């Protein structure tokens, strides 16, 4: 083992860098889903659609900015603006028109309704953006690459993936933790998450909190998509791919756990990149192996807390 480690130290170093970048993207998507579940108690399949629409919108807005002759740096503003727009428009719309009608209903019904919404939004994407891959990689290209030493060689990494994505993910994690624990609105959200009935008895407007939380969660999903858009190609089905992995993260983390989502994303990111280097056949199953391993030991997830059944 020691010999193997000595032989592969350099490759493990590269895998660590790759794993960090991948974990950042996974976290950005999963954290919104986790937050929404924590407050609304709904497993929202349509979260993947919000990711996809955020990505498509960011690419379109970026291209529009470029066509309008705005400076290239405006591409970064396009990413944030697109996420905010998608969250602000689709969040309240979905929560008011769809989710509000299924709170407290059977989980099967909730899954079916959000899945139906997912299918509708998939068609909406095709209607607006067509089926050919859409790309806008200016924000990634603009920052260029940095050469990481690798023995006598160097390996170029994009600065966007190596620094920007993990940086935004870290800022999101810290900001979200601060918001939920240090601000009044955040504490109100935590109160509703912990015990909705008690919170309402204390005078908290739970309906407003759920609307706010879902809008925020939708914006986070859209931001995940927007941040991913410069690195990838957007095609029909991208939302479905995302949501499956996000569910694995949320289940492993413990439902409603922000730090758990961060740690799980990191585990999945690192596990996946190590697999790509040393056992590529396992790359696809690594997230699910981690999920099964964690849930066998801690059925409530890494950071989840056991709850007594209320009924």
């Amino acid at each position, binding site marked *: 083992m020691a010999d193997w480690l000595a032989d592969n130290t350099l490759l493990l170093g590269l895998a660590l860098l790759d794993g960090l970048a*991948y974990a950042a993207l996974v976290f950005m998507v999963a954290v919104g889903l986790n937050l929404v579940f924590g407050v609304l108690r709904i497993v929202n399949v349509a979260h993947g659609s919000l990711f996809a629409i955020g990505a498509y919108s960011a690419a379109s807005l970026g291209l529009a900015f470029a066509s309008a002759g705005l400076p290239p740096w405006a591409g970064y503003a396009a990413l944030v603006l697109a996420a905010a727009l998608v969250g602000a428009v689709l969040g309240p719309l979905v929560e008011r028109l769809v989710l509000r009608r299924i709170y407290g209903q059977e989980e099967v019904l909730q899954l079916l309704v959000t899945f139906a919404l997912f299918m509708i939004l998939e068609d909406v994407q095709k209607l607006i953006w067509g*089926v*050919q*891959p859409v790309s806008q990689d200016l924000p990634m290209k603009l920052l260029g*690459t940095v050469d990481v030493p690798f023995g006598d060689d160097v390996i170029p990494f*994009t600065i966007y993936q190596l620094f920007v994505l993990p940086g935004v993910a870290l800022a999101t994690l810290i900001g979200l933790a601060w918001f939920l624990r240090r601000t009044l609105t955040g504490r109100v959200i935590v109160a509703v998450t912990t015990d909705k009935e008690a919170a309402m008895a204390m005078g908290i407007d739970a309906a407003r909190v759920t609307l706010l939380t879902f809008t925020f969660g939708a914006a986070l999903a859209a931001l995940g998509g927007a941040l991913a858009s410069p690195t*990838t*190609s957007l095609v029909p089905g*991208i939302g479905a791919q995302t949501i499956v992995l996000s569910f694995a993260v949320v289940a492993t983390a413990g439902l409603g756990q922000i730090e758990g989502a961060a740690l799980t994303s990191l585990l999945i990111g690192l596990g996946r990149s190590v697999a*790509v280097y040393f056992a590529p056949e396992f790359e696809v199953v690594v997230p699910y192996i981690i999920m099964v391993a964690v849930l066998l030991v801690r059925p409530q997830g890494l950071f989840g807390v056991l709850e007594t059944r209320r009924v």
Partner: protein
Amino acid sequence: MNDAITRRDALLGAAATAGSLLLAGGNARAQARPTELRIGITTFLSGAASVFGVPARQAAELLFEEINKAGGIAGLPVRAYFVDEAPGTDHLVGEYRRLVQNEGVYVVFASISSGSCLACTPLSDEMRKTTLLWDCGTQRIFEEGKHPYAFRTQGYGTPEVLAPLLYLLKHKPDFRTLAVINQDYAWGRDSWELWKAAMDALKPGVRVVAEMFPRFGAPDYSTEVTRLLAARPDVILSTSWGGDLVTLVRQASERRLFERSTFVLPVAEASMQVLGRTMPAGHVIGARGDHWNNHPQPKDPARLAKFVDAYRAKYNEYPIYPCHHMAQAISALQAGLGRAIQAKGGGWPNDLELANAFRGLTFDTPTSSITLREDGQGLEDQIVGLSSFNDRFPFAVPRDMIMFPAAMVSTPVGQKSVDWLKTLKPEMLAQVPAPIAG
């Protein structure tokens, strides 16, 4: 019991049933000419593969519109019934039956996915329905069984992999190491098996430094790109397509992987428009056939230009290879039905007569002619070249093109592709035609 069936009743019933069946059989033999030509078309209308399926449907709609304006096929207006392959083979099998039994389609065009074709061909046998395999590439269809009602109106996996390999061996004969990064599904795995068998036979001793099969639809290839940068293979093969290929090329290009290794991309053509100038020059690209927009010697240049221009005018983009494959299937139908009607002296052919007309049929495409062999497989030439840019197109097209005759790169009838590829000799390279200027 009063309503018990007597022996006499049973005999009468049996006689009546037999008579009905005979009459029905007689009707089938003397099939009446329909009032419209109904065609069932299975293609991807949703999901990742809709990048192929929707342009193909658009091509079909464009061509049927033109055909109907010109009087239809065999004097009949064409009516197409499109079915989405995306929900999977179980759904598709039901849809195939519905198309034949409920909609009464005369011909079925199936499919993009190899899995779909493998599900539909046994149905063509069972329902005795002429089925034109218009895009799928698996070699298994005609190598693992006989399908008297199925015909593939384009090439297939073996020539589409062998031609780029032969091109590479001519272009960069000294390569020593290779890595593969294919999508993790049937085509990604099968195409690697075909390539490896042929490469081991034609250039023994090449070291494979990485075999990677990221999941289908993977949104990020950063880790794979890092590994390839570290491994420094002389050649990187990828038979990926659609958004996966676009993402791989973008990420690899940004990180200068194209400067370290020569890429071989047999299915590149469909992604060139989306990639635009991002696609680096000087890498081996294929089109699953010979239908490049800059084909150096098309058989019918006016017809090629008319199709490309009409498609561009209607959909604001160049047609990609699935559009050409769809056009080929329609050309095959026109030629096959014409041949069947002629063989019947002007009468309307039944299903068997129609199928028989396709065996050995040669039909023209804008770029060449395709012959359907006795096993049902079409012989389509393959053009491979190096990615390059010119003033005509805002995206990469091939230069130094080599046109591989279909018979040279296709498995002979009755043999299995992997077995045949293993028998190839390096001397085969001497038969490779010279690159075409232009």
